[in-house]
């Protein structure tokens, strides 16, 4: 049936359509803010697991009074020439951050590299260095090879300035703070694992108990109180250096005055904040 609309009829039709379509959302907008808090409370009471698992709060520090994140820019240094691979840092991190001891979850770990005379590079990291290292004779690939050099390389999250992990999180649960640390919001992470896949340094892992993404935070809860990260505390050799890049007298600024500073996987364009010195060929 052909219908010819007059302007007035068209206007009426449109108005009717808008009213039909717009009324339910308008109702929601009008009534929603009033009833939403009660609804939320009800749901939270009925479904406690939605809030996520909470660890028992024990010996919490006193609340931090004033912390101006904008005044700090943290950086980390690693001196592979002095690391002895004792693994105290790995253990300290696990204890400080309640990372499960089993389950292949490491916020920080130590690797050992072997460079042969022909410049082939081999590496190992048994249990991440947690129980130190066995003698090199136990590695089958090194049978018969003449080692030119071997050294230890501690690894941790680089808190990249252009981090791929913050780019790909579908819900924005991981983000970079103003003072330079990449944090994970445990109450919003859905555990999809995309960030774990995109980290070029394999610094992230799925928490075995919480089923969310987790990673080294440079002990954010410590550094904001002017303490040092647990791994830096525990290192007996000053192989790990932590400090505030905005403070010219800090350890990290002193460290960076050295000649041969490098970063890992520079070609990835992640602009890491963790700087290394020492032999670099083959270090991945």
């Amino acid at each position, binding site marked *: 049936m052909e*219908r010819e609309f007059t302007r*007035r009829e068209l206007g009426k039709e449109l108005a009717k359509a808008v009213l039909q379509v717009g009324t*339910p959302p308008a109702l929601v907008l009008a009534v*929603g803010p009033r009833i939403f808090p009660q609804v939320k409370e009800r749901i939270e009471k009925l479904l406690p697991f939605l809030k996520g698992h909470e660890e028992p709060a024990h010996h919490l520090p006193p609340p931090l009074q004033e912390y101006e994140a904008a005044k700090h820019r943290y950086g980390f240094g690693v001196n592979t020439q002095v690391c*002895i691979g004792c693994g105290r840092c790995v253990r300290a991190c696990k*204890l400080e951050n309640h990372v499960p001891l089993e389950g292949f979850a490491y916020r920080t770990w130590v690797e050992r590299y072997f460079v042969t005379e022909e410049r082939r590079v081999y590496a190992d990291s048994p249990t991440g260095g947690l129980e130190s290292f066995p003698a090199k004779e136990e590695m089958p690939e090194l049978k018969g090879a003449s080692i030119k050099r071997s050294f230890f390389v501690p690894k941790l999250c680089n808190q990249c300035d252009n981090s791929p992990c913050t780019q790909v999180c579908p819900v924005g649960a991981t*983000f970079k703070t103003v003072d330079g640390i990449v944090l994970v919001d445990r109450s919003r992470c859905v555990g999809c694992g995309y960030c774990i896949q995109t980290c070029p340094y394999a610094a992230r892992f799925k928490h075995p108990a919480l089923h969310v993404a987790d990673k080294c935070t440079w002990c954010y809860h410590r550094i904001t109180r002017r303490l040092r990260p647990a791994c830096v*505390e525990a290192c007996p050799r000053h192989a790990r250096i932590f400090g505030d890049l905005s403070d010219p007298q800090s350890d990290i600024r002193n460290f960076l005055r050295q000649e041969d500073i490098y970063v890992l996987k520079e070609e990835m364009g992640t602009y890491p904040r963790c700087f290394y010195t020492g032999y670099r060929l083959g270090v991945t």
Partner: protein
Amino acid sequence: MTKTLSLGLKTMRSTEHIILAFKIILVLLLTLLAMRTVTVPVPYGEFHVFQERTIQSWLNEVPLEYVGAKSCKASACHRDQIDLLSSSRHKDISCESCHAVAVGGIEEKPVDCMICHTRLGARPENFPQITKSEHYPNQRCAKCHDPHAPIPMMTHPMPVARKGRQACLICHLKPAGEMQELTVPGVSSEFEYLFRPPKKEFEHGGERDCISCHTLSPSLAELATMVHGKDVSYCPRCHRAGGFAQGDFR
């Protein structure tokens, strides 16, 4: 006179059911959007509210386990170990590195020395490392090396010091004038200098214990000046001021 507006509607006839379908979809979408506006405190693409909440949680709801060496050393307890440590080879190691923190307290038993001091090819050559099977494998490390003052020379482990002269001669074997042979097996030659004896047999005071003069003074330099006589300030430790005749010892 009414104007007929076709707007292309003439070509689409009887489209009411299609328009109804689109209306239903639109209502659903707009209602969901409205619900989101009510429940989520930030617009699309912004996360600052959640981020601030996370940061606050990290700042205030995370327990601290490690205390930090500064706090340990500032305390009034364990002063003797701390003082011993303060001038030893281990002075830069945090207390908690060896006395590892367990969740909820400090572990009493310190770590196995071999975690750091086993010989590994990847460890720097100038780092003291031994092959346990070649270096007194059946002894406890602490028999000769006080963990808070590990070099058994100037800074003495109390067990060794108390045993008197015989204990010193375990390492300081040869008489004066001869280059000390390393009597400590399994240690790299880097540390040879630690075992040089005094140039002269130190007859001073006869049967006096070594520790009477080689006291808990950690500095190598002090030892050197004492031996070479450049600094006489040590003498008054035993001799009263004014005379160096025999007798009259303190």
